[in-house]
C-alpha cells in the first residue's frame, strides 16, 4: 500500500533534493521524494492531496524534554506566559499575584473534598518584580487543603499554611537557608531548593519522583508533541524501573500514539557500575517507538539556582560556586565504560566549569578508549566559550543548547547571575556552528514550553522577554535553526540514519505546517502554525486531538 502525499512544498533537509512537492510512503517508510512522475514507478499508489496547501518538514525532534511536561497538566497552570494545554485550551498567563490567586481560587472551587491537595505549577515571581509570595497569600485560596506551587524554574516551591502544618514545619526554630522566616519566626511558605521541597511536596500532591510520568501524562505529552510538529522527543532523565519501561513500551506501541520516545537512564541514586549494567540491559528493550539504553549524567546544578559550577570570575552577584552532582571520579568511570561498551552518554552541564570537567575527562577517556563516532552530547552547556567549543568539536562531542533560556531568563542572567558579557555568550549557537560542533537546541519542557519552532525563533533572534538582544554574534540563520530541530537533533541522538530528513528509506515522520518557515521570516518563525504531524505514515491532525 503506497501513499503519495502532495504538498505545497516539502522541505526535505536533504541538500541533494532540498525542496520538492511529493513524497511516497509505504509501511511507515519513505520510498522517495520528487515529482509525481518520479514516484509513480514504485507501483500502485493512492494520491493523498490533503496537504496540497501545506508545507511539510521532517518531523521535528525535541532532543531535551521530559515526559513530566505531560503529567504537570493535571495541575493548575499559573505561569506568566500564555501556554497551550495538551487539549488545546490556551491558558492565559497570570500577570500578577492577584491573577495567580484568582486562578487558584477558580480551580479550588471545583474540588469537592476540602482536604484534597492542590498542586499548581510554573509560578515565576521574577515577572512580578520578584514580589515574595507567602503562605498568607495562598491561605486566601484555602486554609483546609494543602496547596503547593512549583516555580517555573523547578527550584522553588510556595506552599500554604496547611501544607507546612502537614509537613511539621508550621513552627518556630526552623533553621535552613532555603526556608525564609517571617517576623513571627515561622516559615513564610517559600521553599528554596530540592532539599527543602522534598519533605513538603508529597503533602501538596506532587509525586515523590517529580520526573516520573503516568499513562495520562504520556497521552498528554503526545498531544503536545503533535501541536508542536514533534514526532520524536526525549525523556531526558528517568530511573526507568521495569514497571515504567513496561508502561512506556505499552503506550508507545499503541496505534494512536504519535511520538517516538527516547528515554535516558538518569545516573543519580545508583552506583556507576550498576548504571552501566542497567543501560546495557535497557538497550535490549528498545523498540521503534521507544528507544532505551542511553545514559544521562547530571554534573552540576542550574545557573538561576546558583548551583551551576562556574569558572572564574564566578557569579555576578558574588554567590559561592555551585554544586557537583557527581564526583569527577565517577564521571570518568561512566564515560570510560560507556565508550568501551558503546553506550551513548548525555551530560548535563550548565556552568562552564562543569563543561570543562567533561571536556578534560573525555580527553582522557578517549585516550583509553578511542571511539571515532561516540557523539556524546553536552546538554545545556549554556556558558561554554569559544575555546571550549573548539575542544568540543575536536573531541567529537555534540551540544544541545538551551536556546529558550534567553527569552525566559536572559534578563536575570544579565542583571544577576553571570552579568552582561557572559549573558551575551550563553547558548552560543553561532560560535558552536562556526567551530564545527554538531548542534541541537531545546526547550527542556516543562521548564519552558515544548515547541521546536519557538526554540528556533529564540536561537535566531536571541531576544529576552524584556526585548533585549543577547549576543548578536551568536544568532543563527533560519536555515541553521531548522537544521538544528531536525537533522541536527537526529545526529545528536545517533538517529540521523532514520529520521531528521525526508529521503528514501527514512521513517515517514513529517511536521505538517500551515506556513512556510523558510519564507515567513526569522522574526516570525515562532508564529508558524502547525496543522499536525505524520508519524511513521500515520496522520495526526491537531484538530482531532
Amino acid at each position: 500500500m503506497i501513499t503519495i502525499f502532495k504538498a505545497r512544498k516539502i522541505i526535505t533537509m536533504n541538500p541533494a533534493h532540498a525542496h520538492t512537492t511529493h513524497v511516497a510512503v509505504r509501511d511507515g517508510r519513505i520510498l522517495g521524494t520528487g515529482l509525481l512522475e518520479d514516484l509513480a514507478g514504485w507501483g500502485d499508489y493512492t494520491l493523498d492531496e490533503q496537504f496540497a496547501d501545506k508545507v511539510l518538514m521532517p518531523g521535528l525532534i525535541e532532543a531535551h524534554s521530559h515526559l513530566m511536561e505531560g503529567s504537570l497538566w493535571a495541575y493548575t497552570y499559573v505561569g506568566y506566559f500564555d501556554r497551550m494545554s495538551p487539549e488545546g485550551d490556551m491558558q492565559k498567563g497570570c500577570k500578577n499575584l492577584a491573577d495567580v490567586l484568582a486562578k487558584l481560587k477558580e480551580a479550588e472551587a471545583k474540588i469537592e473534598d476540602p482536604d484534597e491537595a492542590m498542586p499548581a505549577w510554573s509560578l515565576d515571581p521574577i515577572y512580578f518584580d520578584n514580589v515574595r509570595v507567602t503562605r498568607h497569600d495562598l491561605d486566601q485560596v484555602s486554609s483546609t487543603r494543602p496547596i503547593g506551587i512549583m516555580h517555573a524554574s523547578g527550584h522553588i516551591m510556595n506552599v500554604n499554611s496547611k501544607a507546612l502544618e502537614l509537613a511539621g514545619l508550621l513552627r518556630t526554630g526552623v533553621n535552613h537557608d532555603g526556608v525564609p522566616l517571617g517576623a513571627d519566626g515561622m516559615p513564610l511558605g517559600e521553599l528554596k531548593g530540592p532539599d527543602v521541597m522534598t519533605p513538603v511536596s508529597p503533602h501538596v500532591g506532587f509525586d515523590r519522583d517529580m520526573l516520573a510520568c503516568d499513562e495520562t501524562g504520556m497521552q498528554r505529552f503526545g498531544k503536545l508533541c503533535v501541536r508542536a510538529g514533534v514526532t520524536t522527543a526525549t525523556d531526558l532523565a528517568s530511573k526507568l524501573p521495569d514497571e515504567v519501561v513496561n508502561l512506556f513500551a505499552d503506550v508507545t506501541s499503541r496505534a494512536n500514539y504519535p511520538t517516538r520516545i527516547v528515554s535516558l537512564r538518569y545516573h543519580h541514586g545508583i552506583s556507576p557500575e550498576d548504571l552501566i549494567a542497567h543501560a546495557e540491559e535497557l538497550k535490549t528493550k528498545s523498540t521503534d517507538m521507544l528507544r532505551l539504553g542511553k545514559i544521562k549524567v547530571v554534573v552540576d546544578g542550574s545557573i538561576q539556582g546558583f548551583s551551576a559550577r562556574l569558572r572564574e570570575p564566578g557569579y555576578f552577584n558574588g554567590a559561592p560556586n555551585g554544586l557537583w552532582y557527581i564526583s569527577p571520579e565517577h564521571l570518568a568511570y561512566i564515560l570510560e565504560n560507556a565508550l568501551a561498551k558503546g553506550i551513548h552518554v548525555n551530560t548535563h552541564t550548565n556552568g562552564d566549569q562543569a563543561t570543562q570537567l567533561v571536556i578534560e575527562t573525555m580527553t582522557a577517556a578517549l585516550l583509553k578508549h578511542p571511539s571515532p563516532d561516540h557523539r556524546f552530547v553536552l546538554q545545556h552547556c549554556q556558558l561554554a566559550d569559544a575555546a571550549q567549543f573548539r575542544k568540543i568539536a575536536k573531541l567529537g562531542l555534540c551540544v544541545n543548547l538551551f536556546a529558550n533560556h534567553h527569552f525566559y531568563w536572559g534578563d536575570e542572567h544579565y542583571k544577576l547571575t553571570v552579568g552582561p558579557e557572559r549573558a551575551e555568550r550563553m547558548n552560543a549557537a553561532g560560535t558552536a556552528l562556526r567551530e564545527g560542533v554538531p548542534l541541537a537546541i531545546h526547550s527542556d519542557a516543562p521548564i519552558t514550553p515544548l515547541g521546536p519552532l519557538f526554540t528556533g525563533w529564540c536561537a535566531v533572534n536571541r531576544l529576552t522577554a524584556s526585548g533585549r538582544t543577547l549576543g548578536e554574534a551568536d544568532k543563527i540563520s533560519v536555515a541553521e535553526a531548522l537544521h538544528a530541530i531536525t537533522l541536527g537533533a537526529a545526529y545528536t541522538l545517533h538517529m540521523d540514519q532514520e529520521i531528521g530528513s525526508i529521503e528514501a528509506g527514512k521513517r515517514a515522520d513529517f511536521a505538517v505546517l500551515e506556513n512556510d518557515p523558510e519564507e515567513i521570516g526569522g522574526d516570525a518563525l515562532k508564529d508558524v502554525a502547525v496543522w499536525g504531524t505524520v508519524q511513521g505514515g500515520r496522520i495526526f491532525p491537531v484538530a482531532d486531538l
Partner: protein
Amino acid sequence: MTLSDTGLLVTVLSGYLGAGKTTLVNQMLRQANGKRLAIMVNEFGDLPIDADLIEAEGDDLIALAGGCVCCSYGDDLIAALGQMAAMQPPPDHIILEASGVALPAAIASSLGLMPGIKTAGVVVLADVGLIEGQLANDYIGDTVARQLGAADLVVLTKTDIAGPSQVLRAGKAVAKHCGDALILEAAQGQLALDLVLHPQRLAVYEAGSPHGSGKGLNTRVETPEGPVDAETYARALAQRPEVIRAKGHVQTPQGVRTIQVVAEQWEVRDPPRDAQVGVVIISLDATPIRQPENA
C-alpha cells in the same frame, strides 16, 4: 535521655571518595554492642558492609548483626529517613553516609526539617595522603573545604600508611578549613563509637596538629546522670591529671550550661542555642578500642 525528648539522632558522615567512610562504618558496627545502628548509604554499589556482619540482604535494606540495618537512600533521602524513623522498634541512632561530593552542612540543615529527626553532628573524614591534593584541586577543592567547614569532628584516615610528617601536614591543611572542630587520627576506622554518635566541636588554640589519636588518646563522651553543678563538674575534670581537654554541655538545676576544660583551667558559659547534653573528654587514660578480630 529517651527518644521522645530528643528525636532520632542522625550523624552525618562525610568525606571525599576513598576517605575511608566505609571502613569507619564497619568499625562502628563492630562496636555497636547492643545499640541498634541504622547505616544509610547513597547506594550499595560494591557492598559497603563487611560480609560477616550481614544477616540478610534485601533490595534496599540489609539486616545486620545485633539489630543494626543498612539501607540505600538513592535519590530520595527524605523518604528513606522516614522509613528508618518508622521502623519498629526505631533504631537508636542513624549514621548517614553522604556521597563524596555532597555538602554535609546542607544535609544537616535539611535533617532539621524532618519532624522527629535531630542532627547529632557532622563527622568528616580526610585521607592524610590525599587531602592536600584534594584541597588544591580546581574542581573539587572548594567542595572538600566546605565539607571540612561543616565538621564537628574531622577524622584523619590512613595515618598508618603515611609518615608522621605527612600526618602533621594534613592536619595543618585540614585545620585551616574546619574551624573549631576536633581533629583526630584514626587508622583503619579505629575510633570510639561515642565520638561518631556525638561529635562535638572543641575550640582549637594551636591550630595545626591533630588533637590526638582515636586509638592512643582516650576520647569519649560523658553525659552526667541528672543535674550537676557546672562549676563543680568542670573543676573536677580539670583536677584529673589525665584529662587534657574537655568541652560540652551539662544539665544543671538552672538549665543547660557549657563547660570547657583545658589542662587545669576551666570555664562555664551560656550554651549555644541548640546545645545537647554531653561532654567530650580527651584524656591520656588510653582505653583500647575494640579491634575487629575481637569484636
